[in-house]
C-alpha cells in the first residue's frame, strides 16, 4: 500500500514538473518570439517572410524552395509584365519540411491561387527524422528557434504581441549580378532512364503540401529551375513519375532549357549552381508566359488596391532586399 502511495506521489511530482516546464516553455516562447518580421527583430530569414507584410489575401502566387529559387524568380518582373502578385518564400537549403511549415504560415494570412514548389529541396540529404522533430518543436515552442534572441531582448518583448507588417521590396527574390560561367556543357542533363529515390519522409511531406494546397483551394505546381550543379535526369525522372501519379503539373526548366534559353556562360553566378540576374530574367520571362497560358490570374495593375506594387516598380530589382 505504501509502495503504491509512494509511486502515485512520485508520478504526480513528475507530472507537476512537466506541467510547470511546459508553462515556462510557453512563457519564454512568447518573450523570445520576434515581434516584427524584419531582420532587426531577429525573425528567421526575413526575406522569405515578407509575405506577412503584404495586404491580407493579396498574393496570387507563392513560391517555395531553396536558394536556387530565390536566385531565379523575380516577382516584380512578373508584376510589371503581367500584373500578377507573387512572393518567393525561399530560404537557403530549405527542406521540404521547412517548406511545409512555411506554407502553413502563408495560408494563415494569404489565399494564393497557385503554390509553386521548387523541387531541388526534395533531395536534401540529412537526418530527416530529426529535421521533422525539430520543425514541430520550433513550431510549438518558438523558444527553440529564437533562443539566441536573449542577447537583444527588450522590455517590449515582455509586453508586446507580434505584429508582422514589414514588406520586402524584391518580394523574396535575391539579386545576384556576378558572372562565373559553367563550362560543363550538356553533361549534367545526359538523358538517362534511371531514377533517383525519394526519401520516405520527403515524399510524405510532399504529399502533405499537396493536401494542404487542396484544403486551401490552391493549385500546386512542381518547378525545377535551371541548375547545372544541383539537377540531373535521375531527379527529373522521379519527380515526373510522382507528378504523373498525383496529377500535379511539373515544369522542369532544365530539360526545357531551350525554352528558358539559359546560357551557362553568362547566366550563372557560381559556375552552374545558381542563376544570376540574367538567368533569373529569362526564367521569369518563361514563367510569365507559362502562367498566363495555363492559369487564369487577374491583371491587378489597374486596381488601386495594388498601388503599393506599382510604387514598388520604381524601386529597382537591383536592391538587396
Amino acid at each position, binding site marked *: 500500500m505504501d509502495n503504491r502511495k509512494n509511486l502515485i506521489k512520485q508520478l504526480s511530482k513528475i507530472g507537476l514538473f512537466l506541467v510547470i516546464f511546459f508553462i515556462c516553455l510557453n512563457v*519564454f516562447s512568447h518573450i523570445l518570439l520576434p515581434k516584427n518580421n524584419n531582420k532587426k527583430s531577429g525573425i528567421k530569414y526575413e526575406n522569405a517572410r515578407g509575405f506577412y507584410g503584404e495586404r491580407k489575401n493579396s498574393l496570387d502566387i507563392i513560391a517555395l524552395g531553396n536558394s536556387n529559387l530565390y536566385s531565379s524568380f523575380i516577382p516584380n518582373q512578373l508584376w510589371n509584365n503581367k500584373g500578377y502578385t507573387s512572393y518567393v518564400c525561399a530560404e537557403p537549403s530549405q527542406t521540404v519540411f521547412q517548406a511545409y511549415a512555411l506554407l502553413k504560415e502563408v495560408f494563415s494570412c494569404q489565399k494564393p491561387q497557385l503554390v509553386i514548389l521548387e523541387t531541388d529541396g526534395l533531395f536534401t540529404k540529412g537526418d530527416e527524422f530529426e529535421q521533422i522533430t525539430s520543425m514541430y518543436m520550433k513550431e510549438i515552442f518558438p523558444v527553440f528557434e529564437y*533562443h539566441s534572441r536573449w542577447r537583444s531582448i527588450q522590455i517590449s518583448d515582455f509586453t508586446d504581441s507580434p505584429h508582422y507588417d514589414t514588406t520586402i521590396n524584391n518580394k523574396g527574390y535575391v539579386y545576384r549580378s556576378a558572372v562565373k560561367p559553367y563550362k560543363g556543357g550538356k553533361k549534367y542533363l545526359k538523358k538517362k532512364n534511371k531514377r533517383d529515390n525519394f526519401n520516405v519522409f520527403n515524399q510524405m511531406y510532399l504529399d502533405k503540401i499537396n493536401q494542404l494546397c487542396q484544403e486551401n483551394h490552391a493549385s500546386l505546381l512542381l518547378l525545377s529551375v535551371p541548375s547545372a550543379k544541383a539537377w540531373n535526369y535521375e531527379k527529373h525522372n522521379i519527380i515526373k513519375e510522382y507528378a504523373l501519379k498525383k496529377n500535379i503539373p511539373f515544369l522542369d526548366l532544365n530539360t526545357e532549357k531551350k525554352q528558358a534559353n539559359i546560357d551557362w556562360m553568362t547566366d550563372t553566378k557560381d559556375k552552374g549552381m545558381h542563376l544570376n540576374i540574367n538567368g533569373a530574367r529569362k526564367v521569369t520571362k518563361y514563367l510569365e508566359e507559362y502562367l498566363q497560358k495555363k492559369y487564369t490570374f487577374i491583371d491587378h495593375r489597374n486596381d488601386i488596391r495594388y498601388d503599393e506594387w506599382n510604387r514598388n516598380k520604381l524601386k529597382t530589382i537591383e536592391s538587396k532586399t
Partner: protein
Amino acid sequence: MSYTSFSYLLFFLGITYVLYTLFPKKYKYIVLLCMSYLFYIVSSSWLIVFIVLTTFIIYFSAIWIDKINSIFIDVKKNLNRDEKKNLKNKLLWQKKAVVCVMLFFCLGALIFLKYYNLFSEILNFVIFQHIHLELPYLKLLLPLGISFYTLQAISYVIDVYRGKYKADYCLPRVALYLVFFPTIVEGPIGRYDEYAYQLYEGHSFHYENLTFGCQLILWGLFKKLVIADRANLFVNVVFKSPQDYAGFAVIFSIIFYTIQIYTEFSGCMDIVRGSAQIFSVHLPQNFKQPFFSKSINEFWQRWHMTLGTWLRDYVFYSVSLSQPFKKFNQLVKNHCNGYLSKLLPATTALFFVWICNGLWHGASIKYIVYGMYYYVLMVLGMFLEPVFIKVMKIFHIHKETQYFRVFQIIRTCILVNIGMLIFRAKDLTTAWNMFLSCFRDFSLQPLSSYGLRLSDLLMIVCGVVIVFIVGVLKEKGVSIRETIAKRNIVLRWTVYFAALFIVIILGAYGRGYDAVSFIYAQF
C-alpha cells in the same frame, strides 16, 4: 542520431523508457536490445552486419574456450602430474588459437576498415613505389562505434581466456553488452562483468535513478551545448587558417580547444551515463576531473579512463607477461644496473600502450605522434625522477606544499594543451607552425574577427567557472546531485528549472551555430 538531438532525447530515449517500464521484468532486456539495434540501423544502416558478426564471433569464441576448460577439469582427475601438464599445455595452445581466430576477425575488421588506407600509403611510400606497384586507396565505410565495441568484444573473450569469469551462454546478454545504444557511439568502454548483467536483468521503475539520470543528461547538455559548441566557433576560425594568426590568438585557440574537447567528451559521457541510469544501469566513469592532475601519468588516469584501463589490462599486461618480454626482462636484469633494470622493461611495455593509444584515436601519423608525445613525457618523467628529487632537495621544495601542487597542475595543463594542439591541427607541420607562432606577434584583434561575440566569450568563461566549481566539489567528495536532492522542493526545482532553461536559451544550437558532431564519435 546525435545524443543532443530532439529525436534522441524526446523520442528515442523517451519511447524506450516507456516501453522498458511497461514490459514485464523478464522481458525488459528485449526492449533494450531491439531499441539498441534500431538505434544502430538508424545511424549506420546495413553496417549493423559488422556488430552482429562480432557478437556471434565473441559469443562462440568464449563458449569454445569454456568448453576447453571443462575438458581439462573433467579429464585431469584421471591423469598423473606429467600428463596433466602436457594436457594443460596442449589445451592452452588451443585456447590461444581460439583467441587468435577471434582477434583475426574482430581486430582484423577494425584494422582493415580504419587503417587500411594509412598502411597502404606507408607501404606504397616505403616499398611498393620502388617496384612499380601501388596499393589502391579504398573508400571504406566505418561502422558506428567500431573502435569502442571492438575493444569491449576483445576484453570479454580475453577475460574468459584468463579465467576471470566464465563464458556467457546467453546470446541476448552478450549482444546487448556490445550494442547498448547509449554506449555505442563514444563508449565508455565497459567490461562484461561490470554491466552486462545490469543490462540484462530487468529493473522496475526507480524514481531516484530516473531523476538522477535526467539531471546527469542535463549536465552533459550544458557542457556540450553551452560551452563546447560555443568554444568551437573560435577554435574553428583559428584552426581553419592558422597561418593568419599568431601569439594570443593561437594560445587561446589551443586553450579553447582543450576546453571544447573536455566539455564535449565528458558532456557526452554524462548524457550516456545519465541515459543508462534512467534504466538503472550504472556505467563506469570516463572522466575524473582530469585538469586537477599533477602529472601526465595522473592525467591519463583521470582522462578517458576506460580506454586507459583497457590498454593497461589488455596491452600492457599482455606485453609484460609474454614469454619474449620475460626473456628481455631477464636480459636487462643481467646486464644493466638497478636503475635501468627497473625502468627499461616498464618503459618498453609502455611503448606499445602509447602506440596503440595514438593509433586508436585515428589512422594518421599525427595520432601516432600524439601517442608518442605522451609516451616521451612519461618516460622522461620516469628516467629523470632522481634528478627532480635532487633539485627539489637543493632548493628546499616540498612536494606537499600548496604552491608546488598548483605549479604541478599548471605544468600538466600546459603539456596537455600542447598534446591537444597535435590532436586538433590538420597535420604535424601545421601543429609545429602553430606552436612556434604562439611566441610571436601578441597583438589582439577585435573579438568579432575570431567569430565570437563578447556575450559568447562571457558564456564560455562562466560555463568553465561552473565546471571548475563542480570539479572542486567533486574532488572534495561532495555528491552534488544528492546534496541538491536533500533540499526542499522549491529550492530544488528552482535549480532544475534554471539549469533546463540555461541549456535551452543559452545553448549554442540552431541558427547562427553549426551543429557540431561529437569529436570522439569519429573514432
